[in-house]
């Protein structure tokens, strides 16, 4: 596993942990209408510490002592992944802005903090698509390049 693949795995694990934390906070605050418990914070911190430890292990273990940062093939794969991530970002942003307009009608309005949630959600999804696109391209040997 080279550095690009490790980076993709880090992003993927970051997405999963963030998604779990945000999902818990969203359900607690908006669905159950209560504040998060302190015991949950301990579990979340433990989760973050485990992830951090895994990241350190992953980054310390190198493929070989002469492993480069990224060669031409890695760069091409990363470039393609960014473009795929852009397509997903664009479609998600479009859905996130047009669906409220359609649901709430001409005179509808949304709280301003929703925009931040939309941006953060799209950012997380862009990271997920980027990481998956990199891993998929390595798996299929990047035949297009």
């Amino acid at each position, binding site marked *: 596993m080279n550095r690009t693949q490790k980076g993709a795995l880090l992003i993927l694990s970051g997405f999963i942990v963030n998604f779990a934390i945000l999902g818990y906070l969203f359900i607690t605050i908006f669905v159950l209408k209560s504040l998060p418990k302190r015991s949950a914070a301990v579990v979340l911190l433990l989760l973050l510490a485990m992830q951090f430890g895994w990241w350190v292990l992953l980054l310390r273990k190198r493929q070989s002592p002469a492993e480069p940062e990224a060669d031409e093939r890695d760069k091409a794969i990363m470039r393609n992944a960014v473009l795929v991530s*852009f397509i997903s970002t664009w479609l998600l942003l479009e859905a996130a802005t*047009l669906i409220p307009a359609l649901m709430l009608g001409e005179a509808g*309005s949304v709280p*301003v903090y929703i*925009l931040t949630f939309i*941006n953060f959600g799209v950012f997380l999804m862009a990271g997920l698509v980027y990481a998956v696109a990199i891993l998929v391209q390595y798996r299929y040997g990047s035949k297009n390049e």
Partner: protein
Amino acid sequence: MNQTKSVSWFYFFLGLACFLIPGVVAVFIVYDKGVSFVPVFMFAGIVIWGGLFWVFPFTFGRLGKGKKKVTFDERDQLIHKKSVMAGYVVLWIYFVAACVIAWCIVGPHGSISVNVMPLTLLGGLVIFTLVQGLASLIQYSRGGKEHE
């Protein structure tokens, strides 16, 4: 006029026609009957068309692979990809700035009209197209050298 120029003009008129015709029709429908599914659907189509128009050169490049004449070579592909990536970066900054500006204008407990959100998206499309075009021009003027 060489083939590259004629292909560029073709993209220009295709993009313009697919952008303007549904846009004008959607505006007329909204003006006449108010917001409904049809104009929103047309608007979605326009924004997808505008935002993902940069994919076309790659698609046509693949279709014309069997032909001997090369109009979109490796260097052009690299320049095109880099300019799209530059546009993508600016687009992110634009959307983050839009969030912050909206927050500053209406305050943390304020709300914004849903009509503003599609307009923000349209603004993003304009900025993306502008940055992509500028980045392409700059890279071609510099000879498309590698600046990784």
